[in-house]
Structure formats: structure tokens, C-alpha cells
């Protein structure tokens, strides 16, 4: 059997996933989505469309109300609290609110992700420097995270998410506070990770991020998948629709 002909393994598999927040807020509704290893998928949609909830479901920050979430071969909803670290070590997440420790330095914030997997100090140092170089933050190595601009904090959050070379990277609005040049640096880092086989799921409002790429774009609206398509310029057409939603927006 030729290994090159076998399809890449599935890394994220959402099957009819719904999430309802109390009292009765439907954040995600019947979402099914399959992402294979090494794929880059852009998750787009208006505010409140369910992008962040979907990322939180994948990283097991939330449990689905209905449906199955399978990540890197693990049924996330059945994962016990004791074993949750097994998933989190495979999934790196850059949060919309950054989740940095303001009193700690930039280096210390990134080091956290490496310390929990008992990475040797020398390797931690090396990896931090490498990432800060890539994200143009080397001069901020010893600066406290609380003293950084929002754009810089965002980059530190991204660096921490990818520091551990996770199999999957989830990025929630990773370029929301960045200028064009820094956005390009972040995207270059993501492309680099993809080449190494990392699966990326990027939630963004910024259409410019995916307009000239061949990556899959999943559009969410009111918690449902409105469409899945290759980005503009790509040969692929729209390949999935939510008919009920289309009726709503195109009467």
C-alpha cells in the first residue's frame, strides 16, 4: 500500500454539535465539521455567530449540550477532568482576551506552556527566543506582559499557543489588534506550522486573512454553518450549505 495515497487522518471531528447556555441561548446548533491533519481552516462569521464557542468546545473549555466532539482521537465530551491535560497538550489556543499573566514577563508567559510538559530549561530558552524573533518581540523578552500594547499581548498569546508544537492550534481573532506587517508575520508563523503538519483552526472577522489563500473557510451564522468553501481564488466551490439559514437570509 502506498502511504502517500492514504488520506490524512482526521484531527477534529464535530458531529451534530450543539451548545446551549442558560437560560436558553443557542450558541452553536447542529454543527458538523471535519478537519484533517495539517489543514488550515478559517472560521468566519459575525460577532455572536458561535466561532469562539466552537473553539471552546474543541479545547474542552465547554462541554457540548448535544453531539460529539472528537479531537486527535479523543472523545472530548467523555474526557475526565483527570485526563483533560492529555487533550490540552495537543491543542494550543490563542485566546481573544489573551489570558496573559500581567505581572510576569513575556518570556515567563510563554514558558508556562513548555514547563507543564517538563521541557528542559535550555530548550525553553531556545524556543522562546525563536518565537519572539519570529513575532518581532525579542526586545520585549523581559518586559512584563501588563506593560505591553494589545497587539504585543496578542502576539505573546500566539507564541504561547504554538510554543509546545501542538498538533492543533486554535486561534481566536489572532490578528484583531495587529497592523498589516505584524499580521503578515503571524500568518507566516502559521504557514510554517502548517508545513510541519500542524492543524490550524483560525476564527477571524478579517476577510483579508483568507482572501488570497487556498485554505478552507467555514462561515458561521447564528450558531450554524452557513457555508464551507475554499477561499476566493481557489478552484473549489461552495460545498456545503445550511438551507434553512439560506432561506432566512435570502428570502
Amino acid at each position, binding site marked *: 500500500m502506498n502511504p502517500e495515497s492514504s488520506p490524512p487522518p482526521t484531527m477534529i471531528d464535530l458531529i451534530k454539535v450543539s451548545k446551549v447556555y442558560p437560560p436558553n441561548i443557542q450558541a452553536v446548533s447542529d454543527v458538523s465539521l471535519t478537519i484533517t491533519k495539517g489543514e488550515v481552516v478559517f472560521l468566519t462569521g459575525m460577532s455572536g455567530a458561535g466561532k469562539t464557542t466552537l473553539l471552546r468546545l474543541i479545547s474542552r473549555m465547554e462541554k457540548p449540550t448535544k453531539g460529539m466532539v472528537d479531537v486527535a482521537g479523543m472523545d472530548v465530551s467523555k474526557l475526565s477532568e483527570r485526563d483533560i*491535560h492529555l487533550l490540552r497538550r495537543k491543542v494550543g489556543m490563542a485566546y481573544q482576551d489573551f*489570558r496573559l*499573566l500581567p505581572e510576569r514577563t513575556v518570556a515567563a508567559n510563554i514558558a508556562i*506552556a513548555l514547563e507543564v510538559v*517538563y521541557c528542559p530549561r535550555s530548550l525553553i530558552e531556545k524556543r522562546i527566543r525563536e518565537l519572539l524573533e519570529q513575532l518581532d518581540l525579542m526586545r520585549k523578552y523581559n518586559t512584563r506582559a501588563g506593560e505591553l500594547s494589545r497587539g504585543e499581548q496578542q502576539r505573546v498569546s500566539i507564541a*504561547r499557543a504554538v510554543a509546545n508544537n501542538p498538533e492543533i492550534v486554535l486561534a481566536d481573532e489572532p490578528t484583531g489588534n495587529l497592523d498589516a506587517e505584524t499580521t503578515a508575520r503571524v500568518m507566516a508563523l502559521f504557514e510554517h506550522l502548517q508545513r510541519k503538519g500542524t492543524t490550524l483552526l483560525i476564527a477571524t472577522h478579517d476577510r483579508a486573512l483568507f482572501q488570497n489563500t487556498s485554505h478552507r473557510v467555514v462561515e458561521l451564522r447564528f450558531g450554524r454553518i452557513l457555508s464551507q468553501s475554499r477561499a476566493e481564488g481557489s478552484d473549489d466551490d461552495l460545498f456545503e450549505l445550511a438551507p434553512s439559514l439560506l432561506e432566512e437570509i435570502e428570502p
Partner: protein
Amino acid sequence: MRFWAVVVRHACRNMMLTWKSQGMTLFTVSLSVLIFSFFYLVYVNALHIGEKLGDDLRLVVYLDEDPSLPLQEEYRHRILKFDQVERIEFISREQAFKRFEHILGPNNDVLTGVPTDFLPASIEVYPVRTLDSLSRIKRFSDYLQTLPGVLKVQYGKEWIERFYAFIQLMRVITLLSGSLLIMTTTFMVAHTIRLTLFARQQELELLRLVGATNNYIRTPFLLEGALQGGVGACFGLGALLVLYNWIALQFAGPNAISLPAFAFFKWPVVVAIIGLSTLLCVAGSFSAIRRFLHL
């Protein structure tokens, strides 16, 4: 190895973060250990002194006349029927006189012309040397008083009763100070750990998100408790040793009152106290983690 290096680093960071309450806890633990171990030391030494003094403890049963051999056997039989004793000695009037003469030493000429049978015959009963024997002495004495031909029974009644009361008091105080040690260490450590948990809440949540195991998050807090208990106990015992040496110095010298049997704890006891304190603080830390750290 890496795990413990990280755990130690985190524990140190925790302690730096809440150093004021850490200091207070350390002080409280040290003080509790000092109070407990002081009373325990006094109690243990009192027991020891009791045993030493017990060596000289005897009941002297004065008789109206020298007992014949069959009567001596009868006395011996009756005494042994009541309780076990180390030995029984019969002292005749003449032996009593010789002893008295010996005690007077160079001044024994005062006895010139005094009849050698002016002192009464007696039985010296040496009870078994345990502290309990002290409490049984009175009952023993009452029993001996009922034997035929007995004029009087003598022993250090007041001294024994006071000493026994003192031992009882020390036992109660040691137990109370032990309870104080348990309460203060567990409560104070639990309180400090709770403060640390609140101070590091954001970081702990983040650690969970980046894939830290439960042990990775919990162990530094347990280590923190163990350090507070261990170091606090060392300080407490160190202070007690200083106090002990100071007191020993005050009683040193040829003209001072000697403290024959008073000694500091042996190593196993020191290790046991440090271990107990450490264990209590870990328990306090564990209870705080269970209540306030939701993983």
C-alpha cells in the same frame, strides 16, 4: 526529577507571593511547636525524675518488737499477697542503731551510753519502680498499717502526692498544647494556602488550559504546607534548645541546685516532632486545596 524541580520552583514562587502570611504562619507554627515541646520536655523529664527518685522510694514499717523468723516469713507472705515489691528488708533494733551510728559519722559519740535497742525494729519495703507505684504507695501504706505488730508506716507522703499531682497536671497541659499545635498548624496553613490560591487563581486557570496535570498544580501547595510544618518545627525546637541551654547554664556550677535527670529530647523524638508538624501542615494544605482549588 524535572517534576520536582518545577514543583519546588512553584512552591518558592507561592511563598514569595504571600510572604507576609507565610511569615505569620511560620511564626505561629514555631510558637505552637515551642509551647508543645516545652511542656512535653518537662513532662518527659518529670517522668524520668520520678523513676530516678523511685529508686530511693521505700516504705518503712516500724514494729513494736524484733520479729522472729516465722513472723518475718508471715510478714513477707502478707506483703507479697498485696502487691509485687522489689525487695523486703528486715531491720532489727541493733541494725537500726548501727545505721544511725554510721549516719552520724564523726559525731556518733553522742550515742555513748544510749542503749543499742532504743530504736524500733522495722521492715523496709521497696516497691516496684514505676510511676504508678507512686500512686499505689498510699494504698500500700494503709494496708501495711493493718498488719499485726505495726506501730507506724512512713514514706514521703506529701512529696509523693505533690509530685503525682504535678505529673498529672503536666500530662493535661501537654495534651492541651498538643491540641493547640494541631489546631493552629492546620488552620493557619489552610488559611495561608487559601490566600495563595486566590493570589494565583489566574495562573492556575491558565496552567490547566495549557495542559498541566492535577498533580503539577496541587503538589506545590502540599510542598508549601510541608515546608511550613518542617521549618516551623525546626525553629520551634531550635528555640527550645536555646532555652534549655540557657536554663542549664543558670543551674550550672558547684553552688547551684543540680538538675540530675533533666535532659533534652533524643534524636528520634526530635524527628518525630518535626514529622508530626510537617504532617499536620500538609493535612491543612490538603484541606484548603480540596475546598478552594477546583480543577
